[in-house]
């Protein structure tokens, strides 16, 4: 890393590098929880964000699942949005202009149901102004493999990574699914296939039942669990993955406050993403940036980078 110390002395140094992607601070918004950023423009200062990750984009528009799509659970929520999005072409033509003008790094979350689809989206994103990186959502079902999620099998995860890397002209972040027996195995496979960074965790698969109607609450039966409830699982997986890969790790899962974010950084995350918390408090991401800054100042750290992976672990 090369950080020229050009900052004003009273401002904390929050810069981090996600491989070749340099961001002003480690706080990103998680895909699917921040719309296309514009939704938040009246509610917070978007320029304070390290990066924006937009709602997952597929090759063709998707209508998403029938309602109900969300249900609250204990300290969390289940969603089965069904990856509703406008498709990559309309995303580029309708959404990117605004995002590019924000002048903050925009990372496009992509999804597909075949390697070819992942590749084609990546190709279309090449050269689009404002796109600073691609985040690959590998929690999607692989249609060819009978709907098993790409992310649950190390070799399929590797194949998606390779396919996207082959075409991408920006850094590629691969977003892991937590619904696996051995997250370190998937992480290593993804790293070996050329991923520039790894983000985790996506949602845990869950379900809610309505006793009165005797039906699943979600029309889609199952959904993805997010929010504070999953934070312990996310922290554990970030710690495990950061211990076995040498590319940057981005922590996600139940982060609401700067304290939460710093815990993930101690466990090895170079940056973090704010998801569900933005629903509860639209200013959550900005407040986390402020809180991390205050911590760096009060702890007199040269930079926020000095806490990454600094967890002291002595197993007895």
């Amino acid at each position, binding site marked *: 890393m090369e950080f020229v110390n050009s900052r004003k002395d009273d401002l904390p140094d929050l810069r981090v590098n996600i491989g070749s992607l340099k961001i002003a601070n480690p706080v990103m918004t998680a895909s*699917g929880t921040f719309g296309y950023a514009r939704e938040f423009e*009246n*509610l917070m200062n978007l320029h304070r964000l390290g990066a924006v990750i937009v709602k997952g984009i597929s090759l063709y528009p998707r*209508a998403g699942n029938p309602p109900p*799509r969300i249900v609250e659970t204990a300290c969390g929520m289940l969603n089965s*949005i069904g990856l509703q999005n406008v498709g990559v072409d309309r995303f580029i033509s309708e959404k990117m202009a605004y995002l590019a003008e924000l002048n903050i790094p925009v990372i496009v979350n992509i999804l597909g149901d075949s390697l070819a689809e992942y590749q084609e989206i990546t190709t279309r994103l090449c050269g689009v102004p404002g796109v600073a990186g691609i985040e690959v959502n590998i929690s999607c079902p692989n249609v060819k493999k009978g709907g098993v999620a790409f992310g649950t099998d190390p070799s399929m995860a590797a194949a998606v990574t390779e396919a996207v890397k082959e075409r991408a002209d920006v850094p590629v972040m691969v977003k892991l699914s937590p619904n696996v027996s051995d997250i370190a195995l998937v992480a290593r496979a993804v790293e070996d296939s050329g991923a520039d960074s790894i983000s985790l965790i996506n949602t845990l698969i869950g379900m809610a039942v309505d006793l009165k109607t005797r039906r699943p609450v979600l029309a889609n039966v199952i959904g993805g669990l997010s929010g504070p409830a999953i934070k312990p699982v996310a922290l554990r997986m970030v710690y495990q993955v950061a211990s076995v890969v040498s590319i940057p790790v981005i922590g996600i899962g139940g982060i609401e406050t700067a304290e939460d974010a710093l815990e993930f950084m101690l466990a090895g995350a170079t940056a973090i993403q704010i998801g569900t918390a933005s629903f509860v*408090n639209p200013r959550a991401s900005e407040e986390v940036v402020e809180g991390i800054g205050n911590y760096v100042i009060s702890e007199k750290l040269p930079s926020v980078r000095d806490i990454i992976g600094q967890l002291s672990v002595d197993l007895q």
Partner: protein
Amino acid sequence: MSQYQEKATVIRTEQFSEKNYRLTLDSPDIARSAKAGQFVMIRAGFGKDPLLRRPFSIHQTSTNGQIQIYFKIVGRGTDMLARIKAGDDLSVFGPLGKGFVIHENFPALIVGGGLGIAPMLFLAKSICRLKGDCGNDQIILGGREKVEVEPLVKDFKEFGIKMLLATDDGSYGHHGLVTDILSSLELHNRCTVYTCGPEPMMARVYEICKVRNVACQVSVESVMACGMGACLGCSRPTSKGTYAHVCLNGPVFKAEELVWNS
């Protein structure tokens, strides 16, 4: 369109029945900018549970910076809200969504059932204020029993707008449904019917409007996580075969835009 996250102090709590409550909140930014039919997202409780905010229609606003919500205890969030005391603070986020479209030159007919009465006070006030004179407008309010209607009538009466009342059990006003009353009325062919209430009631109101060929605006509900277009959780099928988002495209829709199961 501006939205605000306010720490609103509770000014007054009113309990109308075992389950029905009204809160008055000091929320100047929202009071100033809200339009009838819009809603707010309120955080109930202190801990991380319940996690998500709860949506409530703005019942009315006042020029001194207050807003009211009128709600019923149906679950944990509303149960916690009912325990709030004057002087406590609540985190309120709004105003959100699209409100009612008011047509200055033609009569309005408001039909509110049960908790669907909540947004109608703000609407009635707005219509009367805009028109100056609301002599041609009417309101039909209904509920299961007297306590669901009677405590609210006084506030509506302030504008001299004509009121028709009904209860399912006959304990107050007409013995029967608001839709019975609606069916029995002559409707100006350019009037707009505004309705909010249980789904079957709104479906029936829309049916009547369709037959009479008059405009119908509905305020619908949906589970919501964010209330502001970020989660895409509040989808509702439209008559075009797509999904609308209640928090962004609604909660007020032209009835014909939506799919009705009746």
